[in-house]
């Protein structure tokens, strides 16, 4: 059997009603990393909740991911400080470079593009975080440099 369905088989028996929908989605996401469609269908089948409803709930909350995470999670800060210092332009630039929209992951699972509230380093605004590393005082030009760095890393890896 497929790995994700095997995880469902292990997790689902501990949940039984519609009230368990959120906890069950949380547990499955923590084990799988995101909520693929077949997992949603499995949850729907097990809890007897229509799949479209499970999907609606999962899409409502920010905490749930409907797509897998890329190896590099790029988070553009849209806190107030970053916003006024040009976060929207930076986001646009990254969207253009990665061909991704906010919330999406590239098909090769390389990048995931997100926006976040405040990262907490407003002094360095505008900021971009890649995985755990924060890059401050960004500009659309410096974004390109950011990608050069990744490219090299990739080449070395």
């Amino acid at each position, binding site marked *: 059997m497929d790995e994700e369905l095997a995880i469902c088989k292990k997790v689902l028996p501990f949940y039984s009603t519609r009230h368990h929908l959120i906890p069950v989605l949380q547990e499955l996401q923590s084990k799988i990393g995101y909520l693929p469609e077949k997992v949603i269908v499995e949850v729907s089948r097990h809890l007897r909740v229509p*799949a479209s409803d499970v999907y*609606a709930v999962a*899409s409502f909350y920010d905490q749930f991911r409907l797509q897998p995470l890329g190896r590099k999670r790029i988070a553009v800060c849209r806190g107030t400080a970053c916003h006024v210092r040009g976060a929207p332009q930076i986001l646009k630039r990254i969207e253009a470079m990665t061909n991704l929209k906010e919330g999406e992951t590239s098909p090769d699972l390389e990048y995931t593009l997100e926006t976040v509230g405040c990262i907490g380093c407003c002094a360095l605004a505008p900021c971009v975080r890649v995985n755990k590393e924060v890059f401050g005082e960004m500009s659309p030009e410096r974004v390109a440099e950011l990608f050069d760095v990744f490219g090299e890393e990739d080449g070395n890896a």
Partner: protein
Amino acid sequence: MERIDLLLDGKQVTARSGMTILEVALENKVYVPHLCHHPELKPAGVCRLCYVELEGKGPVLSCRTPAEAGMVIKTRSPLVDEIRSGLVELLIADRHDDCPSCAKKGRCELQKIMGYLRVNKKKARRLRFAEGALEPDTSNPFFNLDPNKCVLCGRCVRTCSELLRINAIAIIGRGYRSKVAPLGAKPIAQSSCESCGECVERCPVGGLVYKEYKRPEKHVLTVCPYCSSGCRLTLGLQKTEIVSAQGERLCARGRFGWRYIYAPDRITAPLARTEGRLVEVSWEDAIRLAATHFARYRGEEIAVVVSAKCTNEEAYLFQKFARSVLKTNNIDNTARLSHAASLEALWEATGIGAATNSLEELEDAACILMVGANTARTHPAAARKVKEAAEKGSRLIIVDPVENDFRRFAHLWLKPYPGTDVALLMGIAGVIVEEGLLDLGFVEERCENFEELRGSLADFPLGRVERLTGVPREMVAEAADVFARSKPAAVLWSTGVTQYLHGKDTVCALINLALLTGNVGSSSAGLHPLLEQSNAQGACDMGCLPGFYPGYQPVAGEGVREKFEAAWKTELNPEPGLAFTELWDAILDGRIKALYLVGANPLTELPGGYRVLESLERLEFLVFQDLFLNETAGHAHLVLPAAGFAEKDGTYTTADRRVQRLRKVIEPAGRSLPDGEIIRRIAAAMGATGFDFANPAGVMEEIASLVPGYGGIGYEKLAEGALVWPAGTAVLHKQAFHRLTSKAKLFPLDYQGPEERPDVEFPLVLVTRRNAPYYGTCAHKVDGFRKLAPGEYLEVSFKDAGDLGLGDGEEVKVISRQGGLRVAVKVTEDPPPGVVVLNYNLSQDPGKALMRREMRACAVRIERFL
């Protein structure tokens, strides 16, 4: 119901308790703006436009506030108008400022509200307008979903869940980004949406709109020509063209299926074979040709098969023609391939070959046993009722080797190996008898053969049942317990039962279960064969059966032939005839030489083992009558063009015995004629009397005089609505069964097993399944259905795919003892290991090529392409 008085805009009005303020206002013709309210849906309170001012309380949402005695309500006031205007301006800013270019213009409820509030669009523009247009979903061939025009009222979502229980769509996402979409936010055509259009009917604005909309100028009430639920269909006409179909709840076939009437490849003129080619001839020549050829054969040498989509009047005329003019009982109808076994078994057991109860009653069944029925695909209307009942607490026991959309509603799901249902059902009956769960009083008073049945139950100990069916014995016992203890219990079945070689035995086993538990003769219980074609019941009622005259009066029965000889003033053949499925051997050994096919396509409808192709080539004279040419037509000597359901008058009988009027709405295409008119002309050319009816109403008069159940049915009464036969009886057999002994018959049964068992060479069992609700009648002639049909694929379990090394999407060869085909594999969790499921849609089942005589299952092996 309690009546209450209140003051509405200064006028005294009376309401029933339980109504909301909005309902009271609308009933009294006082308009209150609203978008999310719809009379058939539960109040949602999301659009917030329906505020009214309640004295002493201020603004309240009228759609969620129950009316109370003494309330003083103002539907307009500066305060509520201000609230509404603000909300409407926001909606306009949200892409509703260009009504003239909207597909809903003139019919839009938001436009109406703008007028009512005199909203100033220019003023609305001070608000920041939504950025950029969103991508409309145009994937469905019949309608578009345009998020730009959607006001998120949720009516569509609630229609799909509350009213239909299909739950294809939801409002996904949050806040500014929320929209209506199916699972995975995919295009709607790739979702579980069944394209019924009910959501489109209820969308107040331009969010959901039909692709080709024409406003109907007048409406005619008729019946849907697809399944035997017989939904009432209101066809909308613009001049002489059908432009729409509406009904209480229609499925895709009801809503859009009529379009086949306008398919460009209708046969529009009679065709006769000359020098190997079919060429157009006049009706006079065609009729003469049919008459002279038919006259050449003795009764035994000729056979007639009519479609179960013919009207009652036509079916009656066809069998009268076969019997009184051709002198043969070789008359059958196409329901032979689906449900004739059901009706014959019911006749044997109860004396009436029909469902014992109406589907309406399912709502109050405590238990529903549903066997071999892909109901959501084949009988959407019945599926809805079963789901509603299950939600109300009815315990649903499903017997089917493969899971389907009902899994979320099922209490128990038993998955026997294909073709082993008899063993399973006898096992359940065994437990019921052994544990004393039976209704002893009912069995003793109203049934015969109990001791014989009890004797044969001894052959089905649970150990053997488990071995034969693969269903764990505890589950068999639990099913018995639930079924016997929940009264009333209803039993439903469909072609997953009857299209097996021993399908009649399975029907008998189901009848046993219902009788043993006393579930026949009372409401919300009973036996329900879910017949496929629109008039399957009627075609059988009318005697298009080789062993029965109209009304299930047996050909060999005492005094029956004499009765019809007297009525029809002619001599009749005393020998029962051959069934549709028995013709082919008879043609091959030369006993049958001529065949008259009306709306039948045996070449694709019968499994390979019948050698239909060889038989057709052997025929001396084949008359083919239909709306479209098909594979079988290629072998015809004479082709007669028939009119479609909207081009003729008549009646259809639903699976629950409701007789309803089919009405002529438009003229027949080209030179085509109604089946009834064609047979009338052939009979006249053969010099026969008794066919000179002025209209179908006249035929019904003769039917009513000769068919006991149809006594009292006439067009005048039918004009007011459906009539249930016999004599308006919804629940049959309340006091007595309609057999000589007044008792019902229980059936002792042996286990015969499926035709084919897997072995080393063919280790897997293949079953077929329709995976889309677009099939039957002429569904394959509707463009949109062809586009929606998801194509064929073979579902293989993870285990089997692993063993065989098959990948998802891989094309493989499927080989049976009878034939082979090429198909793509889909690896899923659904089929039990050892079973593969061939999914198909539209009208043709490709699996028929693999089968011998069993129509739904065979043993196969899978080979990979190298």
